């Protein structure tokens, strides 16, 4: 078990003479036994970061430390790290047993019997005990996934690295594996770095999530912090599905004025903005209420554009006027009936709004968490 530290890690690729910065000054500390999810859109540098920790890519500058030992220049085999790949990367000519024992044979001095016992134990734990004599091509996707996991687990490494391990599974299997992976990691207590582009995986699996964009670290926080207190507009838009609605606004007196609507601000909110003039107003779809009649300052007449029924809830796409380009989405209960073309009144409660600096994207004000804390059940 170990503590993994990424200290000002930077990776620059040389692309025919021009430098491409794939990872830019990333600092992340993983506590012993922590499950950290590295999330971001494709091409954001998350896989490169993982591969640097694995030793498959060199580090341009900065340090990667494993329990105070700098491992920048250690070869992959000397790092005591196991990795699970997206393609599973199983050895096709070996049986499951051979696949799982290969790492132990190559990296330890254990004798055959000990290796065999360890492999059998791990296979039993992953419920693939009866498959050990099969070849990978005789297994289903989910079973291959388990073998790939088993190959990592059996080595009992200091750190697990996982590179989108669930993205080749179908949706049903994926959510099952998600839970199982989490349970496994908790039982084993191995420090884990998990890369994904899927924000659902990030939200549900990690102790903490690190959000990367364009090679830069945006925020490291618990999933709920990232959701409710995003550090900037990128994080706010990336985490959550459907995404947060954004409106570009300008501060005029005591209200925000946008293209389609104006939003009066309370004294308290105005103070948190400082002297920012151009801001982005953000509000999550589930925080928008659809009410029967416009009665307050934050109520707006809209027209329903499209309704996406999800069963438990409806995603309602709204326009301020029938021929407007600005569409935003509100999530309402699945039992409420709303139809396209019908008028609706949307309410943006002031306690739920986020405000971002339009220039830098920095969060100026996040939603208040008073209601949230009250709503959370005590454990």
């Amino acid at each position, binding site marked *: 078990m170990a503590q993994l530290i990424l200290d000002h890690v930077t990776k620059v690729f040389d692309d025919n003479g021009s430098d491409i910065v794939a990872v830019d000054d990333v600092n992340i500390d993983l506590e012993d036994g922590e499950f950290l999810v590295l999330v971001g859109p494709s091409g954001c540098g998350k896989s490169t970061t993982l591969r640097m920790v694995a030793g498959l890519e060199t580090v341009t500058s900065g340090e990667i430390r494993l329990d105070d030992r700098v491992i920048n220049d250690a070869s992959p085999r000397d790092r005591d790290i196991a*990795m699970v790949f997206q393609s599973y990367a199983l*050895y096709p000519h070996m049986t499951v047993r051979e696949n799982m024992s290969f790492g132990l044979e190559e990296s330890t001095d254990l004798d055959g019997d000990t290796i065999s016992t360890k492999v059998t134990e791990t296979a039993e734990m992953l419920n693939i005990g009866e498959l050990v004599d099969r070849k990978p091509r005789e297994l289903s996707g989910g079973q291959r996934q388990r073998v790939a996991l088993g190959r990592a687990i059996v*080595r009992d490494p200091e750190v697990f690295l996982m590179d989108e391990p669930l993205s080749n599974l179908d949706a049903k299997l994926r959510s099952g594996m998600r839970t199982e992976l989490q349970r496994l990691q908790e039982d084993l207590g191995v420090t884990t770095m998990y890369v994904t582009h899927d924000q659902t995986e990030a939200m549900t699996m990690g102790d903490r999530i690190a959000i990367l964009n364009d090679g830069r670290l945006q925020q490291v926080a618990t999933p709920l912090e990232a959701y409710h207190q995003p550090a900037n507009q990128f994080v706010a838009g990336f985490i959550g599905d459907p995404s947060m609605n954004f409106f570009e606004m300008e501060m005029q007196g005591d209200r925000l004025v946008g293209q389609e609507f104006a939003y009066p601000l309370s004294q308290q909110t105005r103070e948190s903005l400082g002297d920012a003039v151009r801001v982005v107003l953000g509000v999550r779809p589930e925080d928008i209420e659809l009410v029967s009649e416009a009665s307050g300052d934050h109520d707006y007449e809209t027209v329903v554009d499209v309704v996406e029924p999800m069963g438990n809830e409806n995603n309602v796409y709204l326009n301020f006027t029938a021929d407007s380009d600005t569409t935003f989405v509100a999530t309402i209960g699945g039992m409420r009936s709303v139809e396209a073309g019908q008028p609706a009144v949307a309410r943006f409660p002031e306690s739920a709004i986020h405000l971002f600096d339009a220039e830098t994207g920095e969060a100026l004000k996040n939603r208040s968490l008073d209601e949230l804390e009250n709503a959370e059940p005590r454990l």
Partner: protein
Amino acid sequence: MSSQTANDSTSGIDFQRIGLYAVLVVMAAFYLSPLESGLMTAFKSQEAFIGSTPFVPPPPSGFTVEPWFEAWSRLQLGVFNSLLLAIPATALSAIFGSLAAYGLTNVDWRGQVAVIMLFVAGIFVPYQSVLVPLTQFWTMVGLEDILAGVPLLAERTGLLELIITHTAYGIPICTILFRSYYATIDPEMLEAARLDGATVARIYWKIILPLSVPIFAVTLIYQFTQIWNDLLFALVLLTSPENQVVTLSLNQLQGSMVQQYNLQMAGAFVAALPTLVVYVLFGEQFAEGVAGES
């Protein structure tokens, strides 16, 4: 139209299909006729050959298997020497090709591209252009003197030179064949092996080599045929008659005064037999390798 007739098999005849088969039969006959003529000639006596068209089967009076026995007795030594040459040369060029391709495809290092270009260029060097430098090279090396202490090898100097020459000449094409196959191997799998603690050499031995069976079949068949059928290098490098290979022996079946076509044809079939055997042995893996499925 045609599909209708094909489905309705009880009525009428599918003229399109008949036409297709007719064309196929004519083409097959065209391509097989030299082979058939050769085979018929090999079973005819000299008189029967003169008295009949080549592709007509031998008349009962003119049928003989004598040319086969004579061809075999005169080619025996050549076949033996050719096996002695072709088997090690084929195996060596395939092994070296595989190793080079692994190093150039699955292992990362600076200046790879330049080396690959050299290999590719090697494929395009024609046999004829290296004949003179080749003989000069072997004269300079003086392999016979080097091996003087080991009489068993010294007697075979010519064959050894030929083995080394064919191995070297075969490496580029083998490398490229292996390379195209190794390029399809999942790089993540090799990275997984590195993380599992395997060294570059261990990865080759435990992962790459076991996965290379189909492409080994391809290169073995290709190289064996090339080396077996080569006359030019053998003609230049082999001096002693004890070392002569099958292509040279076959050439000598051509009499100076009387042309014994039946003997020459039988000899050609005897000489071609081993390559056929190799193809039958590795045929299945060959198909797999050509199809590019790992």
